[in-house]
């Protein structure tokens, strides 16, 4: 049961800004990963594959938030969650085992090369998407 009437669509109001941020990140990550993979894949294969994965997830999130609707909200929520897990895991790893990351990825050092947008954006996304999860099957967690 929603406490307040939910906004009409995921792509309205603050959703527009979140889409813009996601689209820009998708563009940046796609650009970076294609350059890295095409030009010097051998230098840091793990980092570069991760850049490509990040790019793909940003694209999925952008599309799903634009689309809206129950299924898209679930897909968008999942991509935001994967992103948050990714940026946290890679962030810790890049400090703990720097030799795994001889070159930067979008997610290394918690996205510091991108003004920490990669860290903040999934949190913003999850916050925004939360209000659209009407009658979503809640898996026995966090009482609303």
């Amino acid at each position, binding site marked *: 049961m929603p406490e307040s009437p939910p906004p009409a669509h995921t792509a309205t109001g*603050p959703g*527009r*800004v979140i889409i*813009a941020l996601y689209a*820009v990140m998708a563009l940046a990550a796609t*650009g970076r990963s294609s*350059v890295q993979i095409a030009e010097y894949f051998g230098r840091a294969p793990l980092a570069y594959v991760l850049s490509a994965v990040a790019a793909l997830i940003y694209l999925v999130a952008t599309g799903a938030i634009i689309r809206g609707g129950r299924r898209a909200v679930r897909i968008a929520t999942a991509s935001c969650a994967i992103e948050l897990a990714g940026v946290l895991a890679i962030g810790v790893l890049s400090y703990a085992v720097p030799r795994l990351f001889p070159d930067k990825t979008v997610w290394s050092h918690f996205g510091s090369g991108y003004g920490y947008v990669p860290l903040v954006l999934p949190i913003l996304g999850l916050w925004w998407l939360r209000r659209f999860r009407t009658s979503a099957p809640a898996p026995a967690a966090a009482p609303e």
Partner: protein
Amino acid sequence: MLAPLSTAVIVVAVAVLLLAALYAARDRLINDALLGAVALLEVALIAQAAIGVARIGDLSAEKATFAAYLFSLPFIPPLTTLLAIKEKSRWAMVTIGVGAFAVAVMTVRLGQIWSAHA
């Protein structure tokens, strides 16, 4: 020719950012003046891409990264403007601002590559 143009791009991008902030403060929507400023930014970005591609041979390294920035940049203003134009609230201006800010930051990076390797 590229460095002064990049500086101009950054100046126009910051101007669009400030204009969007002003509009947001006054609760105004996209109008011809703002669209004109965005169009000017777009023309500058396309010119930058054309000149950058023509001069790419001058770079001693980072050619691919440079090209990626050159080609990505002109997509940003149309994308964020398209998103903002249908939004009838202050969030439209925040969307425009995000695009302008991204253009400014990416152009600064582009300029850094150029001055380091050309």
